[in-house]
């Protein structure tokens, strides 16, 4: 495995050199700058010999907090202050305590320069993919953005929303309303396990997304505005697994198409200082789509290292829009924007009306987490009636009720599509069921159940290749479904891919037993000594 940050670490060990400049042992001011720039190797070098004064102990506490040494962090911070700490210090103590509680029971595993903290148990099925994703992100995305920060990367996987909220320091209400599930902060990546969400989420892309924020903060000395950070992260987050930029989600395409046709794009100025200030979630989603396509346009027209060049300028203090204009249109912001909108018009954007997939943290009924049915109680009622009829083995009648739940002006919601497909399948109309599912997956690709249902139907018809792909898509969003892992194990075994089959079988066992099974006794020895 390629060592991600070997050069930086080596430099630090040898003489304390880092990208933020040279660091000298015992240089507190330098160390603080290094931490702010996400350069932990530099900070670590500067920390040598510090600790004599309260401020130094505060710095050491912060460094420990960034390095996931939470016990040390709390101890040092407490030691840096008297019995009546200042409010900022008290806030720090509170945060460290909350983090310690949130990671209670966690274990740590390091592969190369990536350290993952997680709670032993079912989250173990995320480990392999976490390392793989970050490795791929480093290999494929890092260079396009100017390289990864030295000092390694630390990830924490929180098994529940409550633990994530406690560790993030964000108010619970904000997390629930904004749907934040991951964070790049304090030189760490904080990720909510997909099992904490009702129907999972595209957690690997999200992990890559947060990694990009980490890299961008480092390469821009944390000067990049939110819109630029989001533009780069949104457009680049899929590049760990593919060579080209991905299409926008259908929902965002429909927003963009409408805004283009009506001339209601969100001006960049309105995205300052934060997209959170936009008046509606729909407008924020449109803004994200705009900046993502803007960065994509920039890369398509000026080369794959466009983002790196922009970040360099931003790091030097250039305004973000000016930097984009300089890289993309010789400094002519107007020309850049015109070029971008013209390019957008060449794209075949989805124009049908679609509902946004809500991010619902915690367990929930699939109707409550459906993009449409969650807000349309009238339609949800018909779906429930259909479910009751289906349970009573009255599929034809169930279809009548399900059809009533299809809105007049938009496609069936994903939860409904799965039900329609099941009802058709039970009536022997597999072809129609598959058609419905495929159409729904185009509109709502992040709905794991659609992939699973389609995979099951394909597998039943013997289309094993596509079935495997669909099962994988389902597992990528919700890896905690033992049936999906079992099906994958079977399909891989049938195709002769024994290692992958074994891995999936292991995942299934982890999921069924709540954690890794105990290691088998060495071969040749009796299991128990008589």
């Amino acid at each position: 495995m390629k060592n991600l940050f070997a050069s930086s670490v080596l430099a630090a060990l040898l003489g304390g050199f880092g990208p933020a400049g040279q660091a000298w042992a015992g240089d507190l001011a330098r160390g603080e700058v290094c931490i702010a720039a996400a350069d932990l190797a530099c900070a670590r070098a500067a920390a040598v010999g510090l600790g004599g004064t309260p401020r130094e102990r505060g710095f050491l506490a912060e460094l420990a907090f960034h390095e996931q040494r939470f016990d040390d962090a709390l101890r040092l911070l407490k030691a840096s202050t008297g019995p009546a700490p200042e409010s900022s210090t008290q806030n720090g103590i509170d945060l460290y305590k909350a983090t310690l509680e949130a990671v209670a029971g966690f274990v740590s595993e390091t592969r190369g320069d990536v350290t993952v903290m997680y709670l032993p148990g079912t989250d173990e099925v995320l480990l392999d993919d976490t390392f793989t994703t970050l490795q791929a992100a480093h290999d494929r995305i890092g260079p396009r953005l100017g390289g990864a920060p030295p000092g390694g990367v630390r990830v924490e996987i929180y098994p529940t929303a409550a633990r994530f909220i406690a560790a993030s320091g964000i108010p619970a209400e904000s997390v629930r309303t904004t749907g934040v599930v991951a964070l790049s902060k304090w030189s760490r990546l904080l990720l909510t396990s997909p099992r904490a969400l009702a129907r999972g989420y595209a957690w690997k892309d999200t992990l890559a997304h947060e990694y990009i924020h980490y890299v961008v903060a480092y390469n821009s000395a944390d000067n990049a505005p939110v819109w630029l950070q989001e533009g780069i992260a949104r457009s680049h987050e899929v590049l760990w697994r593919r060579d080209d930029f991905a299409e926008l989600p259908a929902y965002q395409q429909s927003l963009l198409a409408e805004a283009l046709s009506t001339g209601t794009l969100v001006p960049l100025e309105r995205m300052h200082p934060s997209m959170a200030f936009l008046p509606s979630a729909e407008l924020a989603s449109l803004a994200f789509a705009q900046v993502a396509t803007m960065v994509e346009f920039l890369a398509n027209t000026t080369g794959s290292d466009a983002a790196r060049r922009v970040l360099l300028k931003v790091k030097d203090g250039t305004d973000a829009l000016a930097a984009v204009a300089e890289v993309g249109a010789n400094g002519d912001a107007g020309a850049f924007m015109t070029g971008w909108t013209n390019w957008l018009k060449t794209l075949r954007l989805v124009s049908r009306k679609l509902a946004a997939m809500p991010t619902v943290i915690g367990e929930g009924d699939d109707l409550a987490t459906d993009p449409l049915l969650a807000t349309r109680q009238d339609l949800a009622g018909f779906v429930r009636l259909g479910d009751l009829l289906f349970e009573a083995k009255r599929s034809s009648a169930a279809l009548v009720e399900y059809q009533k739940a299809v809105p007049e002006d938009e496609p069936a919601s994903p939860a409904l599509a799965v039900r329609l497909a099941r009802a058709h399948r039970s009536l022997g109309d597999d072809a129609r069921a598959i058609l419905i599912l495929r159409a729904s997956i185009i509109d709502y690709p992040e709905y794991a159940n659609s992939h699973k249902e389609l995979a099951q139907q394909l597998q039943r018809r013997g289309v094993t290749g596509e079935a495997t792909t669909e099962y994988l898509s389902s597992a990528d969003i919700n890896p905690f479904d033992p049936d999906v892992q079992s099906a994958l194990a079977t399909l891989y075994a049938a195709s002769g891919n024994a290692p992958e089959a074994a891995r999936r079988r292991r995942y299934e066992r982890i999921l069924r037993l709540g954690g890794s099974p105990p290691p088998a006794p060495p071969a040749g020895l009796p299991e128990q000594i008589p």
Partner: protein
Amino acid sequence: MSAPRHQIQHHLLRIARRERTLLTLESLSVFIGVMSAGMLVAVLALNLGYRAPVGGLMALALSAVAIGGWRFRDFRRAGEVRRQALRVEAALPLLAGELLTVLDRSARPLGSEVLVERMARRVLAPVQTLPLRAVHPARPAVLALVLAACLGLLFSLTALLPIGPGSLLAAYQQPAQSPPPLAPVVGPRAVVGDITLRYLYPVYTGLAPMEVPNSNGDVHAPPGTTVEVRARSQVAWTSAVLELEGGPEGEPGAVELGPDRSIRSSLTVPVAAAGDVVWRFRFQGGGGSMLSPDYRVILDADLAPQVAVDARQNRASMAVNEPLGVPWRVHDDYGIRKVVIEVRRRDKTWEVEVRAPINVITDLDGRLLLTPEELNLQPGDSARLRVKAWDNDDVSGSKPGWSGVIEVTVSGAGGDHSRLLPARKELRDALVLVLADFLLDPEPALDVPLDGAAWSKRALGRYDDYDSIVGRSWAAGQGMQADRTALQEVEDRRRTLFALVRAAPAAGLLAGLERDALVAAQRAHVVAVEGAVLLFDQMVQTAALKRVSELAQQMADEAAEMNADFPVITEENAAAALARLDQLERVLRELSAAAAQLGQSSLGEFTNQAADRMKDMLAEARKAMQEGRFDDAKTQMDRIAEEMRQFADGLADQQKRGEESSQALGNEMKELDQKLEVLQADQAALRDRTEQAREKHGPGMDEAVAIWKEIEGHAQSAVAASAVVTAGAGPIGGAIFRGANDLKSEAEGLLDAARARNAELARSRAETTAQEARGYSRMLGWAAQDGQRSGLPEVSRTVPAIQAHAEKIQTLLERLARAQAPPELQQALQKLSAEQQKISERAQELSKQAEGVAQQLPMKAPGLQKGAEQASAETARAADAMRRGDPMSAAGGQQAAEDGIQEARDALQQAAETLQSMGEGEGAGKAGEEPSEGGQHSGDQNLGMMAIPAPEEFETDRAYREALMEGMQGEVPEQYRSTNLRYYEELVRQ
């Protein structure tokens, strides 16, 4: 048995006989003594003029019997040999228990027989020599006998009194003696004529004074009425008085004699009289006196109020916070003072006021919206409730009247869900199957000749299971308001659909309005079934989720405790740890059973998956322990604890979110209700101002008012006549029946328009009613020519009357159009129209808000949207009428708008209560304030289960009609009058 022991036994039996003899003597003496004493007192009381209560005598007799009975117990026990042995032992302490030992050993041989025999011989002599009187002295019996004899002697002496013992019983059996009748007055009478009576009724009756000229002199009036008498005598008298005979004693009334032989006097109708009451004049003059003829005073007694409750069951089980929802009616001849609910729980009775009208009012009705909680009842209580009304009789005193009794059993807040849950689930599942069939075969095929009977028979069968469940589990007032409302809605829609299908022609295609009506009825039927399914499902799901969540929490706590108790697993504690795992598994099994109620919903799937996983994990831990892998077992137990905690937290989180969502909905409902309340008040205030303007500027509008009253009268007559037509056409069925129904609908629409003072709509309705009547008359003519119809003459006679009423209304509306409001009034109305317009805009806004709220409600609350839409439309109509200067239409629109708002608020209130009782609306609370008791809540949706049979329960229409007729026949108790009335209404509907 040996001889000594036999002799002992024999002697003891002799002692027993003596005791029995003495006891008999003593008991008889006591009985005779007590009876003699009682009768002695009774005879003395009678002779002194007191009517001693028969009950007292009876009590004495019973006492005597009781004493005798008590002694009988001793009599029975006296036969026991061992008892007598104990007495002997007590009298001969030297025996030191030997006698008892001999007896016991004789009964159950034990030990040495020789020793027992020796002991028997030893005790025989002292026992035999002991005198019997030493064991049972005769003194108490003799004393009792002497006392009884003395009392008996005293009693026999009463024969010397005027009312002797012989007539004692006869005296009690006779009713109270009336005072001897008045001796009839004989002799010639003075001639009196031209009698005029002027009645001045007591104030409480609210009756205006009434004058009766040329009276025969007899007075008919309620007590307390003052009657002024004017008359003329044949001859002149010098003086006279008015005598009142049979009433309370008093001075004769003064009489004023005029020079023209006129007579003036007055009398007051007495409150109570022992017999006939008469009045007459006693004249003086010419050295003598003479009486006038006697005139009767006939009391129109003010009876107690008649009170009826409209409960279809006299027994109900309800939640402590659930409104009773029982409609009530009170009628009194002269006025009602107050209406209360009388609550009787065990031996305590109390009252809670319902209404206390300020004005004199003879009829009151309303709906009991008080909850058991507000009646001071607690969960677990059983109480008997009656509506009690007091009249306003100030003269003879207020009198109460009562309704029938409703027995109420109170369960906890939100109802006893655990009790109702299986019944609701069963009902939901049965209705799902009904729904399935009606979704796929909703009505008879409309494009082929209709065979309604065949379809109807087939479709009726779909309800078999449902009917069976309703009959078994829901017939006795089960469930809560929401349950009953949903079931009632299904019943109503089902009945309408089947009635239409059966009324359809046996051959030929359905077309036009008939087809539309059938399609609309089947849609409404499906919507009702869907609504009921969703409601029951939500209740089942809510309860199941709550239970699953509780069990998950319990499981998580137990798992955490287990982990704390077993930090390390060793050989020694493995068995104990295994027992704890078993305990966890038991809870898990219970959880799985509860989760089964969630069905295949995604939450159910999630719970089942989690339960399966935890089951596997428990099995793995157990396996590790059995194999001696204690570290692995401990690891697995840690995982189990963590898994269970996460599962419990996840469910708790979801429940919390559900509660938050309900809280938000509850707040929205509350806010909407408050806005509606303000709008209602504003509209009422503006209506008052409109009325004031009309009174001030529009005296000429009296004509318009009178015309509208007349129109409304004609419309009411048309509706009544159409009911007769419908009832007559019912047995004939087919097109005749459908035509009658259409005619009735038109007439009812006409009445609605008249009540709303909507001239435009009334004109249109009158026209269509007249047309419909003409067409129907023609149809009846053809049917008569066929000669196949019987019973049509009555119908044929009535239809022209409907037509006449409709045409008369048309004429009146033309007159009304000419009755223009005065210019001043028009100006005043136009000024007010701006305010009405603002109210209209607010109503429109609230209508949209109501639609949004209704969509979020599981029960949809159709009245909410309908009422809000009516308010929106009627406020706009009122504003338009005011701009045009039409006061009557404006007032009608304003009133209809207020009614619409009230309907919306009622629906909102009911929905809030349902949400609350379902447990999902903890924060929903009650929308707005409590509506006043007895308010005009006209809906009949919460009357409990049907007491009237459904038509589909009968083979033919005729059979159904006969059943209804039977139900209507004969006198019914007051409390069942409302049911009787509904029989009639149902008959009319057929």
